[in-house]
């Protein structure tokens, strides 16, 4: 009974002074109409951009569709790019649900990849399955500790986690460059500093019949697990209460620190695992190339998904398709290479702006007498 009343408080919009009362909104409709509306608005703004850049927006959208979903061939392209985005998206989603906003996805991705490489190189004599498991665990641990550190700084020392995790990204990149040019450097990689390579026989494979590596499966499973954890367990309930109103959570005796740190650790572990997949399935070694920007796109994915693990799955595929269409926009429409970044940016801003609409549109606020 107590829990129900708490949940009511957490879902009422901030600044709303009305006395909590039993009322039913049209909740399903609101959470569909607003994001779809934001997407449509972004498409209109992007269409104007395309026209200014001298391209026909309808043709551009046709190309984006063709390059993203036009055939099984393009689907694989989109899925291949979506795989790391799912894991990187969770890196923001999980801590956010416990009330800590982090943007350290890129750094966690990098240190995950680095740690996994080190672990892989240390155990390359072992059978592939064992080496890959050790790599995954190490990568996850490294990414988890990385983000948990930022969350701990906020919880215990009052350092804003957005700032600290952002700065940790630069630290992660510096660490990567330092290690692949120093202690982990393969002297054979003269003009392209890289670590030693893990054995080619021990690489993470592709999903049979496709060119998509199994990182996609990892990502989808992680999203499902995160959903289960948040929506179907007591811990998830506690985390959401903590995220909704930390003071109330403390008042009812929830262990705030433990909840926040675990949520941040799990989020970071996802990004770290993505880094491991990037090394084990794509590069086979650590180099500056593993800093490919997946972490930053993961933040976009998390916000587009409104911090919901299940939505992360399809949003990742959607964003993956968007990124996959970058090439054809350059080749067929002569648009600048930054076009996809412009589209991503417009969508991101629109989605963020639309957040302020929740609870403000009268139609969705119509109170239906439930009593």
């Amino acid at each position, binding site marked *: 009974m107590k829990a129900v009343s708490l949940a009511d408080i957490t879902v009422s919009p901030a600044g709303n002074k009305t006395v909590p009362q039993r009322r039913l909104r049209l909740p399903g409709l609101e959470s569909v109409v607003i994001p779809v509306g934001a997407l449509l608005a972004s498409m209109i703004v992007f269409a104007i951009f395309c026209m200014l850049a001298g391209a026909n927006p309808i043709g551009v959208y046709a190309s984006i569709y063709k390059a993203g979903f036009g055939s099984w061939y393009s689907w694989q392209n989109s899925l291949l*790019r979506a795989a790391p985005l799912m894991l990187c998206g969770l890196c923001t989603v999980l801590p956010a649900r416990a009330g800590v906003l982090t943007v350290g996805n890129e750094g966690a991705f990098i240190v995950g990849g680095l740690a996994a490489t080190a672990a892989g190189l240390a155990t390359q004599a072992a059978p592939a399955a064992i080496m890959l498991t050790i790599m995954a665990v190490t990568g996850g641990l490294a990414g988890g500790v990385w983000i948990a550190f930022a969350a701990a700084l906020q919880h215990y020392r009052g350092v804003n986690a957005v700032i600290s995790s952002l700065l940790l990204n630069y630290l992660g990149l510096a660490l990567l*460059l330092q290690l692949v040019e120093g202690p982990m450097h393969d002297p054979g990689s003269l*003009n*392209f500093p890289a670590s030693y390579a893990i054995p080619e026989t021990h690489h993470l494979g592709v999903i049979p019949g496709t060119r998509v590596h199994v990182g996609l499966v990892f990502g989808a499973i992680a999203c499902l697990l995160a959903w289960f954890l948040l929506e179907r367990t007591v811990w998830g309930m506690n985390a959401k209460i903590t995220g909704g109103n930390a003071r109330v959570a403390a008042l009812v005796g929830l262990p705030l620190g433990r909840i926040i740190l675990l949520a941040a650790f799990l989020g970071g572990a996802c990004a770290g695992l993505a880094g491991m997949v*990037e090394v084990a399935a*794509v590069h086979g070694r650590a180099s500056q*190339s593993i800093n490919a920007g997946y972490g930053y796109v993961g933040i976009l994915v998390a916000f587009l998904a409104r911090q919901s693990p299940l939505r992360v799955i399809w949003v990742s595929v959607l964003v993956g398709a968007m990124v996959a269409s*970058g*090439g054809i926009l350059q*080749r067929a429409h002569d648009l600048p290479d930054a076009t996809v970044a412009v589209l991503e940016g417009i969508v991101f801003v629109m989605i963020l702006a639309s957040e302020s609409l929740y609870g403000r549109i009268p139609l969705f606020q119509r109170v239906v007498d439930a009593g």
Partner: protein
Amino acid sequence: MKVSNHTRRQFLRAAAGVTTGAAAKAAASGSAHDRLVMGFIYNGPKNDLGYNQSHADGRFALKGIPYVEALEESNVPETVAVEESMRDMIHQDGARVILATSYGFLDPFVLRVAREYPTVQFFHCGGGYRDGVDPKNVGIYFGFIDEVEFLAGMTAGLMTGTGHMGFVAAKPIPQVLRNINSFMLGARSVNPKVSMRVVFTGDWVLPVREAEASSSLADQGVDVLTGHTGSPRVIVQIAERRGIFATGYQFNQSVLAPHGFLTGAEWAWGGVYKRYAEMIHDGKSVMNGSIPRRMSGTLKDDFCRLSPFGPAVTPAIRDAIAHARVRLLDGSLQVYQGPLRDNTGRVVVPAGKVVKIEDPALDGMDWLLEGIQGQAKG
């Protein structure tokens, strides 16, 4: 309705047959054979006034060749993205040749896609090919730009008033160290007392850090700035703002410094790409060996060139550089002519010995010439 549709279709078919029949057929088959689709992929923006633009400029040089269709994609990350770009170019646009211009594209990406498409030819700039291991449809092209850096260094050595020069570099890797040393060798050949300070920024594109390094070098009294990063545009801009000289690298940066730009070492990929296009058009391939596995060149082969001189460079100096250029071309002047010591006192090229710039002994360069303040090892 149905009838009229039928007749219209028949009419169109008949008309096509009558008017263009054989000619159209010949043209179609001809263009399918003759049309050569080449896909260029750059790691960074194609207007960076640096490395990527030097390649985009090379691609642009193919405009005049009627049978070539040159596609391009820029800002392609060195991950699955570049694999997918190559596959798209081959799959969607029918590319028969891929030119992957960034070092990090080769292993494993170009190698992997090359195995998937054994009839497509892949050319990579600057990479290492392992004979017997890597796919046969991969070729490598690269240039030795040491002589041009030498000439730019000469210009700098003749123009400097303070005798102090500054070099902003990305990483202490052999390719970069060669440019630093050959620049210094050029400067020293005309101005034995010249000194140079090197600052490594740590990565290829770090405009803020490049600007900081350039400013601090200017504060320390250098009056010529140059660099080796993805694009030294910021370095040249800072030099101009501080009222000192600059020499460029990768691409012609003279527009950025109308007063202080001296010259620069720039790539000239257009000729290389034309040669590839012509050879492939003639039916040659890297698979059967009729196109060399490794195609490399120097100043003499027009793989690189000196940027046009800026207004500050006097006619006497221009003559001196032109003279040195001729001597480099005929071999009477060498960049790495012993005795050479590094800045720790170690002899790196013994007296009387000449190391030619194509010599693989230079591939692992790990030293900085005496007179250079900086560390060759991170």
